[in-house]
Structure formats: structure tokens, C-alpha cells
């Protein structure tokens, strides 16, 4: 007699094997998924390495309604320095540590204070300028930390974005194509169950995405000398859970559609806002609160925040646990929804 669990495992294994083989043999698709992210990161590194940035960048914490000009403090009239209003909180000081800004001024405290990074030559220079402008004396708060280049910050974003599109389109397009050309209908005539089929698609896509992501990460690390403070294992764990949730998202989109054009449209509608909202190229720290709430509901946000915490700040598992939990919860919800909505054939 056959054992139902063993039967199920045999079917799952066969479907995973068949799909993986199909993708690996599609050389153009496989090659492109390896080459594209490396090109993108290299391009960004090239663009942001040149001049054109303001010489100095200083965050200012001011009481509400007060303009950032010389009336607040004469130092704010210094030419060649870009002053901008910063949001209160630990994040602002963190930017000084990462040398993403050269100084932080705080006029909400009494007396006023300033932070500078003692490892930053630009910070030291600004301090001399500040002392020379007169005005009310400010209290010195020192911090330190190696400079975070933009490329170190943006690379996790680009790799994460590439992973996101790979997950959404890689799974969405394939299932929609299978439905459209009748392959799903053929599989439905076999003992293969919907959950086994979907899990097989997820597993084969997950293995390939992680393989590609590891290769691309290694290439970027070697070519761009990316900063990596934390544990590779933590990063792999985060990437795995994030990939599962994003693939599951693709399963939901492709659960019923049988037009590739419609699927492409919907996947773009989901993917493109994620690029903006989840902070791939630009931090969303300054964005309106409502947008930040929406961003917390998107898997890419948790992947990027977690990956940047590991790579730039050396965060460990306890620090990224909330991101892992959020991603795991999304995976469960999307998988359940994707299986419940799934249809083998065109309506």
C-alpha cells in the first residue's frame, strides 16, 4: 500500500525538480538574473562616486515653526553648507555616526547642542567654523563611527529590489503562462494537489533566488568592497524569509489570472511603489507618517531595514527579530490566500 505522505513528498519533489530544470536551462533568463543586479549596483556606484554633492550637510532640530536662518543661530548663514530640518529621534544621531551627515544641531534642548563624528574630518572642520561664527554657545556631543558610503547603503536596496522583482515576476509570470497554455489543466488531471504544486513552485524559485542573490552579493562585495558588519548567516536567514514572503505575494497575484499582460501590469503596480515606499534608493525617514505605516506592511521594507541593520550597524538576531517575525507572518497569510484562491484553469 502507498503512504499518502510519501506520495505527497514524491509529487512535490518531482514538481520542484521539473520547474528548477526548466529555469536553469533557460540560459538567457538565468544569465540575465545574475548579470542585471551587478550592472545596476556598479552603475549606481559610478554615478554617486563623482562630485556634485554639497560640500557639507548638517541636520537641524529646531522648535516647530522656527525658520532655519541666521536669526536662530549665525552659523546657519554659513555658505557651502546645506542645512535641513531633521526629525527628532535616535535616527538623526545615527546619521552622524554613519557620516551620512556631517553634523547635527539641536536647538530644541536648552542650552543648544551639536553632534559631530570624531572620525570625520569634515565634522572637525565644521566645528572650527561653528566656533568662529559667535552666537549662543552650544554644548558638544561627540560620537564616532566609520563613514557609510551611499553605495553601502544603496546596495542592499538594489539587491533587495532585484530579489523582489525576481520573486514576484518569476513566480507570477510562470504560473499565469502555465494556466494560459493549458499546462495547469494537464497537471490538474494528475493526482498532484494545488498545495503541492504551489509549494514546488515556491521551493524551486526560492533556491534559485537565493543562489542568484548569494552570487550577486559576493560579486558586489568584491567589486565595490561593500561594508558588512554583521553575520552572513543572519543575512541569509533574513533573505530567505523575505524571499518566501515575496514569492507568496506572487502566488496570490497569479492565483486566477490567465493573461500575461494583466499579470505584468498588476505585478508592476505592486512592485514599483515598493521601490519608492520601501526605501530602495532614498531613505523614507522624512516621508509622511501614513506612508511609513503603509511601508511597514510591505515585505521589502522589512528586508531592507533588516539587511541595512546587519550590514551597516552589525545588528544581530535580537535586533532584526521584529523584521523576521513580520516577514514570517506575511508569508503565512499570503500562502494561505494564494492556495485558497488558486484555480487550475481559465475561468
Amino acid at each position, binding site marked *: 500500500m*502507498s503512504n499518502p505522505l510519501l506520495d505527497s513528498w514524491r509529487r512535490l519533489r518531482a514538481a520542484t525538480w521539473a520547474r528548477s530544470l526548466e529555469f536553469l536551462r533557460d540560459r538567457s533568463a538565468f544569465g540575465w538574473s545574475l548579470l542585471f543586479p551587478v550592472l545596476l549596483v556598479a552603475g549606481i556606484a559610478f554615478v554617486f562616486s563623482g562630485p556634485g554633492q554639497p560640500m557639507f550637510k548638517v541636520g537641524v532640530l529646531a522648535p516647530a515653526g522656527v525658520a532655519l536662518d541666521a536669526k536662530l543661530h549665525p552659523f546657519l548663514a554659513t555658505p557651502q553648507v546645506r542645512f535641513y530640518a531633521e526629525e527628532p529621534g535616535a535616527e538623526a544621531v545615527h546619521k552622524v555616526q554613519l557620516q551620512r551627515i556631517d553634523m547635527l544641531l539641536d536647538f530644541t534642548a536648552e542650552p543648544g547642542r551639536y553632534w559631530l563624528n570624531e572620525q570625520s574630518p569634515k565634522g572637525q572642520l565644521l566645528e572650527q567654523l561653528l566656533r568662529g561664527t559667535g552666537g549662543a554657545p552650544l554644548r558638544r556631543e561627540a560620537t564616532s563611527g566609520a563613514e557609510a558610503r551611499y553605495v553601502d547603503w544603496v546596495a542592499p536596496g538594489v539587491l533587495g529590489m532585484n530579489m523582489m522583482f525576481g520573486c514576484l515576476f518569476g513566480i507570477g509570470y510562470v504560473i499565469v503562462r502555465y494556466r494560459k497554455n493549458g499546462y495547469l489543466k494537464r497537471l490538474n488531471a494528475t493526482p498532484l494537489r494545488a498545495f503541492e504544486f504551489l509549494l514546488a513552485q515556491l521551493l524551486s524559485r526560492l533556491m534559485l533566488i537565493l543562489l542568484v542573490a548569494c552570487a550577486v552579493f559576493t560579486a558586489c562585495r568584491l567589486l565595490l568592497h561593500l561594508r558588512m558588519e554583521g553575520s552572513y548567516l543572519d543575512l541569509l536567514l533574513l533573505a530567505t524569509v523575505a524571499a518566501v514572503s515575496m514569492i507568496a505575494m506572487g502566488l496570490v497575484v497569479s492565483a486566477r489570472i490567465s493573461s500575461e499582460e494583466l499579470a505584468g501590469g498588476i505585478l508592476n503596480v505592486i512592485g514599483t511603489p515598493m521601490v519608492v515606499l520601501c526605501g530602495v534608493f532614498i531613505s523614507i525617514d522624512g516621508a509622511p507618517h501614513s506612508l511609513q505605516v503603509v511601508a511597514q506592511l510591505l515585505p521589502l521594507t522589512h528586508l531592507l531595514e533588516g539587511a541595512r541593520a546587519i550590514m551597516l550597524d552589525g545588528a544581530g538576531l535580537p535586533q532584526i527579530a521584529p523584521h523576521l517575525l513580520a516577514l514570517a507572518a506575511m508569508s503565512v497569510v499570503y500562502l494561505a490566500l494564494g492556495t485558497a484562491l488558486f484555480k487550475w484553469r481559465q475561468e
Partner: protein
Amino acid sequence: MPAVLQARDLVKQYPRVRAVDGVSFEVQEGSCFGLLGPNGAGKSTTIEMLEGLLKPTSGQVLFRGAPLGGHYRERVGIQFQHTALQEHLSSRENLRFFGALYPQRRPLDELIALCRLEEFLDRDTSKLSGGQRQRLLLAIALVNRPEVLFLDEPTTGLDPQARRNFWDLVQGVKAQGKTIVLTTHYMEEAYLLCDHIVIVDHGCIIAQGSPGALLAEHFDDAVLELPSAEADKLHDGVVYKHKGDTVEIHTPDIGATIAGLQAAGASLAQLRIRPRTLEDLFLELTGRELRT
């Protein structure tokens, strides 16, 4: 012999069309059963209800006397009209994959010999010809040693040579005693392969029986085909039918009709005589051509 499959008052109602409208029939063990009819007659809908892939709106399908259960899919094999396979996989890999989905499998060598797959066994399935593809799909449908083999328009779109090759294969499968359910709109295919046929039109059965018995029941004549110019010379009481430049004369007594034509001075150089076919039967029953 007991019936393997029974259809009882099957109805399939779609929002705007009643695709199948109360059909009942039985499929006998070891026979080749044909569902015959023009495009849109409800053949595919009916066969999909028999396959257990489509739920009837009302009515019932019984397999060996019982409703279709959870293991029905392991016991039947299906070849659809249009089926894509996974790209970049060879025929052999596709057979292995489909085999792994079933608890029982037929050995690969046996399938290869039965469906003549040797020459393209390791070729990517996207590079197969139409006929080779249908042979592979037939092998896939047989991979689990099914008790019933369903073939939905298996030779539609094949060239005549490939169609004949496919018929040979089906006859080979039939010779092994397998029960086959086939849909087709090729009357010749039905006549050649089927022991029992059901002719459907607009979702209803309009005739059923063995092809020979059906023809004998409806016709006692044969068909003579002649160019119009020659046939018009004969005026006695035979049935004429104009088809373009030719005329069909339907006559129970071929000898007398030919003698009459000769007496009337008609040239018989382009005379063709054929027996009645299922195409004629369909026309007789519905007043329409089958393939329009």
C-alpha cells in the same frame, strides 16, 4: 459486459449557454467509445465531466457503479486537445516527471515502444513536430496504466500522415484491451476506431450505436458522384444533390442507375462510387454539414 463508465442525465449550464443538455450513455469495458459532433456541440464539456475535471450542473457520472472518488485520477489517463508541456525538458524527463506523480507507473521502455518515442526521446519538447508531440502526450496519458484512456480530439491539427500514425497507436492500445473514450469531429476517425459512438449536437444526443449499425439503420443506398453536366442527363426517380460542380446521386441500386446513365448518354469517366459515411448520417440527422 459491465459498464466501466455511466453518464446519467448530464447537464452543464453556463451563464449564457447550456453546453450539455441531459445526456446519458454507458461505456463498456475494453471498448472504444466515441463522442462525435461538430465544434461547439458539447463533446469536450461532456468528456471533461467524465474525466472528473468539471462538475455537472446536474446528473451523475459513475465509475464501475460508484460516484467518482478521490483516487479516480490515479486510475484514468487523459490527453487534452491543447496541452503545453514544461519547456526545456526532454520527452524522457517529461515522462519521468508525470510518472512520479502516480503511485503506479508503467516502465519507461514499455511506453517508449508502445508510442514509438525512440527517435525523439532526448529532444526538447518544444522542438517536436505536431505528430511527435501527440505521441508523447499519449505516452504521458498512459504513464500510470490507466483503466480508462480519454482522448479529446487527439488528431485535430495533424497532417493526414501523422493522423494515420496516431490511429495505428490507438489501435495498438485498444488491442491491449484498454477502455478508450474519444471525442472527434472526424467521422472517419470515429468509424475506424470506435466500437460504439454517440453523435451529439447542441448538447443533446441525436443518435448512438455502433458505426456500422447506425449506417445500416439510416441508409440502404450508396452515393454516385458525377460532374453536373453528365448527371443532369438522367431524369428518373433518384435523389440528386448539387455540390458545386458535382452532383451526388443517392441510389439503392447502383447497377440500374449506371445503366440508366449510360442509356442517357452520360460519360462515366469521372464517376465515383462511395458507401454512405457518418458525415452523411450527420447531414441526414441535422440538415447541416459537420465541418462548417
